[in-house]
């Protein structure tokens, strides 16, 4: 099955790197959507279904934490797996994010293997649910 993936990050470079790394990792992609902040992502999801989201924490307009909180109140959107990709390594912050419903956390810098492992894990657990 090929996935519709949404990458949410205010850096065009980081969005391009995640897209490239997904390709190298061999993750099957149907559509790859991009948004530069949480609000833009919500607007995009109002028109397009996505299966998996990669999001940064620190973004202008709506950051990654607000984005996850908003998604959890939006019915079906709350079921979409969100993987946070960030430089932050605070265990406290990661615990907060997991409690808010984030599916996984990847710390930069990351490798294609790390990305693939997380995609397989979160999509598998989503299918089990």
């Amino acid at each position, binding site marked *: 099955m090929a996935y519709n993936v949404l990458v949410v990050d205010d*850096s065009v*470079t*980081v969005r391009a790197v995640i897209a*490239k790394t997904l390709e190298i990792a061999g993750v099957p992609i149907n559509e790859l959507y991009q948004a530069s902040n949480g609000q833009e992502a919500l607007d995009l999801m109002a028109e397009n279904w996505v299966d998996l989201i990669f999001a940064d924490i*620190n973004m202008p307009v709506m950051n990654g934490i607000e984005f996850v909180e908003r998604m959890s109140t939006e019915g079906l959107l709350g079921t979409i797996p969100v993987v946070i990709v960030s*430089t*932050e390594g*605070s265990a*406290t912050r990661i615990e907060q994010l997991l409690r808010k419903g984030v599916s996984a956390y990847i710390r930069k*810098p990351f490798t294609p293997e790390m990305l693939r492992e997380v995609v397989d894990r979160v999509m598998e657990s989503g299918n089990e649910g």
Partner: protein
Amino acid sequence: MKDEESREKIDEIFCDVIEKMAFMFGEPVTGDELPPSGPHFYSTEMSFHGAREGSLIIAVPAAMCAEIAANVLGVDIDSELAESRSCDALKELLNVTCGNILTALAGEEPVFDLHPPTLSEMDEDGWNKFLADGDTLAYNVDENPVLLKFSFKS
């Protein structure tokens, strides 16, 4: 950033991050050992607050930015993409380095908020002043000189 243990951790993290992100190999050097470059440089800086406040600055030769972007994006160094993303790639290198240094020096419990990086041009005079700062660390990255300064506010 003066104590030897912290300095070694920063050296290790910066070299690891630039290798994993940009496939470039760095080694700590003294100011006298830096490869020649210039006269145009970029300096990127970000501050953080939370458990502690401080900042990280990285300065590189202007020509190196496109090389970093090309390697990060997996495109040709002469491509338009590498040129257009060069500043953004340098900021991302700073961002990733800062996050990893904070965890290494402060541990995994404290939460920090990182401010967006800013970028400015630096001339040779500015480069030499930055190099002369006692807390600035120097690296040879694939024959490019790189300067880095990490500081916690006391």
